């Protein structure tokens, strides 16, 4: 821990001696010299993922810009594997962030004996989690999942299976970056700046839109399910992708293998560019407000023209428009380019599966 001068004393006599003469009894053992815990703890690496190049790229963009992400696809597509690989590409925490994470861990009594937390938290609450478990509460008030995921990732597998109230309640913490737990003996504010990753099946049976398997969902059930894939929380998810089932053929013929390390390097560079631009630590493109978007994004005339074309043709809302600009900005940052160009907008257009698709899905369903 830098900036702190720690003096270890064993007895009151030593305190008195130190205060009178300034004699330091003995040097404390430093934890900082401990080696970083080996990366074997990081469970998954993207080199284990085969045949989901588009999804991996989308995840890279999401992490680089701190964008929330939702993956929609049939069972067996590897959504969970992809999500569990995310920690391996998260940028390293600076000391300030590490201190925050450690503080939270100390409340719940999970501080590691090695000192400050090294890894960003990756929280994966089960879909039966209660509102209190998600937001925090109890007596005395304890942090919930949104706070435990602070500076890290909150992964909601089977997003549509969560109780609607729990999902709705995420809206506040996602927007504000903190959550206030009010109880009879007072109010406690907990930080909750996390990246949300959600995954969901396209329909209750999971095979909607599959080229080979028949979706057996009935119309009404399907409508009810799809309604959960819309709403205020989904609206705040910048990157929405589909993860199709992998066919055996693709498993045998991978196009390219990505390693988490190479992906993380690019992410770190993109984050550094964002930090320099906003001159604020930990600030990412996803946190841009509508006002700063226009001044910060810096679209080339061609890119702006294309964006407006797309807005017309695909009937995008103002929110979708802003999401597109933010994601395009992040893709440009990954490329290390100052101005957002056409190609960045084009790629961003692919990451809006839920903005564009429901109509087609509902009528086929």
């Amino acid at each position: 821990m830098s900036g702190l001068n720690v003096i270890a004393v064993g007895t009151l006599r030593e305190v008195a001696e130190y205060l009178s003469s300034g004699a330091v009894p003995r040097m404390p053992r430093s934890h900082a010299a401990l080696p970083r815990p080996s990366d074997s703890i990081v469970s998954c690496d993207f080199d284990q993922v085969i045949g989901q190049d588009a999804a991996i790229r989308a995840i890279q963009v999401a992490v680089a810009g701190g964008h929330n992400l939702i993956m929609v696809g049939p069972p067996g597509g590897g959504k969970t594997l992809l999500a569990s690989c995310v920690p391996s590409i998260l940028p390293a925490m600076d000391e300030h962030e590490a201190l925050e994470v450690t503080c939270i861990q100390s409340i719940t009594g999970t501080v590691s004996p090695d000192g400050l937390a090294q890894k960003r938290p990756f929280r994966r609450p089960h879909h039966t989690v209660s509102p209190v478990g998600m937001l925090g509460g109890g007596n005395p008030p304890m942090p919930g999942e949104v706070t435990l995921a602070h500076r890290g990732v909150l992964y909601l597998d089977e997003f549509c299976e969560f109780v609607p109230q729990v999902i709705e309640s995420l809206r506040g913490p996602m927007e504000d970056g903190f959550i206030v737990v009010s109880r009879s003996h007072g109010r406690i504010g907990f930080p909750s700046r996390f990246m949300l990753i959600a995954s969901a099946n396209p329909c209750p049976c999971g095979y909607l839109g599959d080229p080979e398997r028949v979706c057996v969902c009935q119309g009404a059930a399907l409508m009810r399910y799809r309604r959960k894939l819309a709403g205020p929380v989904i609206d705040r998810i910048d990157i929405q992708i589909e993860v199709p089932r992998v066919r055996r053929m693709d498993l045998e013929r991978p196009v390219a293998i990505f390693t988490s390390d190479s992906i993380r390097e690019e992410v770190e560079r993109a984050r550094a560019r964002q930090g320099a631009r906003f001159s604020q630590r930990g600030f990412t493109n996803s946190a841009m407000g509508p006002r700063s978007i226009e001044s910060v994004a810096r679209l080339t005339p061609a890119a702006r023209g294309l964006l407006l074309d797309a807005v017309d043709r695909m009937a995008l809302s103002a929110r979708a428009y802003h999401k597109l600009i933010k994601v395009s900005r992040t893709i440009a940052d990954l490329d290390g380019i100052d101005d957002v160009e056409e190609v960045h907008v084009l790629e961003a257009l692919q990451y809006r599966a839920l903005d564009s698709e429901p109509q087609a899905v509902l009528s086929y369903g």
Partner: protein
Amino acid sequence: MDDAKSDITWDGVPEPRDAELASWVFWHMCPGIGPRSLRRLLMEFGTAAAAAHAASRSAKRPDFVSREAWRIASSVPDAVGAGQSEIELASRHGARVVALPSREYPPLLRQIYDPPAVLYVMGRASLADAPWIAVVGSRSATSYGTGAARYLARQLTAAGAGVVSGMARGVDSAAHRGAIEAGGVTVGVIGAGLAYQMTPRLQRLAGEVAKSGCVVSPFHMNYPASRGTFPARNRVISGMAHACLVVEAGVRSGALVTSAFATEQNRDVFAVPGDINRPTSAGTNALIYDGARPVIGARRFVEELAAAGIPVRLPNTAGGGRTHNLGPADEAVFEAVQSDTSFEDIHLSLSMPARDVLASLSRLEVLGLIVRGPGLRYSRKHC
């Protein structure tokens, strides 16, 4: 057709108006009175109104009308009023009543064995206008089926044909949607009264279809859906169409009922072949084995329709009208996109990074050259 079937002709029956139309509606609503009974009533009494009047006076029952049906008909004191209020009910729902001799009644449907005497129609299009082609298939369709239905419906629209289908989930919906997307007319026939409760999905599709085409029911406004109403609906679908195309159907699919009616009504039946090990294509493959014509491409399909004397026009050279200047990468991606092609396939066939493929796909989508379906699949937009 044997004599027993051809003895009844609707030629020369004048188009009913006002009180006579209301009487037609009354007889149409009357259980036990089919179109053939109505025709014979017309021959016996001259007009539908006169027949209703005779029934209400408990006149002698004609022997082709069942005792029960005659009893019900005679129990209604004001037949014309009953028909009138049904017509009013229809107009409150934005629907109109089209009687069989009307100019708007689909001419082909008039020629089948038992055409509905009255159709309830909601929507702008006229039923007599387009050369209708039935596009039907399974509710539980794969994306192959919905993709093919949508694509072929677009092509039919481009060829000047109208798409008629059954508004069900799966293939039917995709066919309607393809026609709407291509700016064509489409007719959805439903197996219940137009005022009978609709699921939200059906209601929504009905709204879309009625905007450019129309929704049709052979049943009176509040007629409930049941097992028996769907074959009747299928008979109307195949009856008003010049040809019947089955896109995807399992061995027990209702679409096969439609195609059987089409055969019975002497219409050409086409089927889209599928994988031999895919259960949802077993019915269509069997149709082809039994003599239905396989659809191996949209152009050939339209050519065959034209050769059969159906007034469709062949689309001018496919893809030749493209004026966009594509870069080499976009061009390569466009070449790789066919119908319902998955991202993996596009990506595998090109040695380009995923992000460049994604960017090209977006550009093609913004240019309107391709459309994106569920499951990260892309198709060319042909119209």
